[in-house]
């Protein structure tokens, strides 16, 4: 398979994951939805059994897997393109 197609698939994966992760994070930042009347959620909240979760922790739990994904994609790119993402070394010859 041509490397352009293979690299294209990689960037398609990155793009899809960025979009999906955006919607995952958006749900965490959104205000809590009111429970529909008569639903198990309403019954649980009314009885005090369901307490609202800690917002900072919820954000942390949603961000953590996203960091893992970034780490994985960078690692994968480095494996297929060993010369990429490494510091460029410059060699200079100094005339005597």
């Amino acid at each position, binding site marked *: 398979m041509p490397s352009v197609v*293979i690299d294209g*698939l*990689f960037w*398609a*994966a990155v793009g*899809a*994951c960025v*979009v*999906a*992760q955006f*919607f*995952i994070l958006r*749900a*965490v930042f*959104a205000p*809590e*939805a009111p*429970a*529909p009347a008569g*639903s*198990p*959620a309403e*019954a*649980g909240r009314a009885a005090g*059994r*369901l*307490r*609202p*979760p*800690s917002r900072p*922790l*919820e954000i942390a*739990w*949603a961000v*953590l*897997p996203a960091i*893992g*994904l970034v780490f*994985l994609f960078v*690692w*994968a790119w480095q*494996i*297929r393109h060993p010369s990429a993402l490494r510091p460029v070394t410059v060699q200079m010859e100094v005339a005597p």
Partner: protein
Amino acid sequence: MSGVPVGAAAPPRPAPSLGRDLVALTKPRIISLLLVTTAAPMYAAGSPSLWLVLVVMLGGYLMAGGANAVNMYLDRDIDDVMARTRLRPIPSGRMSPQQVLAFGVACAVAATWMLAYFVNVLTAALALAGFYFYVFIYTRWLKRSSPQNIVIGGAAGAFPPLVGWAAVTGSIDIVAITLFLIVFYWTPPHFWALALLKQVDYGRAGVPMAPLVWGERETMHQMLWYTVILLWLTVLPWWVGAFGLLYLASALVLGGLLLGGIVQMLRAARAGAPWTGPAWWVYKYSLLYLALLFVAMGVDRALTR
């Protein structure tokens, strides 16, 4: 066993016995899938001997079974409230909490020793990390405090591929980490399908599952987004050259079916039509999906080796 409906149409239950209860504490049906996600990476990582596979399977079963028993000890108060768990050995009074805790810890100790002695220390450490993650991070901390309990707690169920890989190679590389993340991102759509169907139970027990906190529709959307990431993650092992086209085709077809099932459920919910049928399908198919995906990895490597 108050509150348990008894009727003429109820299927006959086998007579309780200590042996049957001890097996029930380990949740054998759940562990069977964990063992598939342990064994298949072993064959993908190399050519393990039958002895090594058997030892890792037994050690993995004991570790996961021990974690499940300790989970039942910690959740004994809510197990009595939920219809799904009311017949477990502790709420039904067949075993004492102390007996269950001792059994769970003994299983974990035996598994740690077995994996460290017969396999390697890394394998034992990874399996033990999965045990601690399930018991303390998921059951003790997140299960009753966060709607993302299944997301982060899902990491506990993602340890088996690492265990299988480390047993054969003695190390962890990008393929092993990808397999870990595949199971990690598979867990939310799988469990949220069940959570959607068992909302009443979870609400009664005060467990803040996603449908109770975010609502049904948002939970279904979240299942969709996690599955999108899952589908692309399954392509990554092929992309780095770990597996061939047979695996890639399997991953795309199997993942496409899962995505299709979730879209169908979401469409039904949006149209105000009954969505429980598609939700059951997603729950059951997701089990088959993970098993077949991991089998495809093993078969692909066996054919191309």
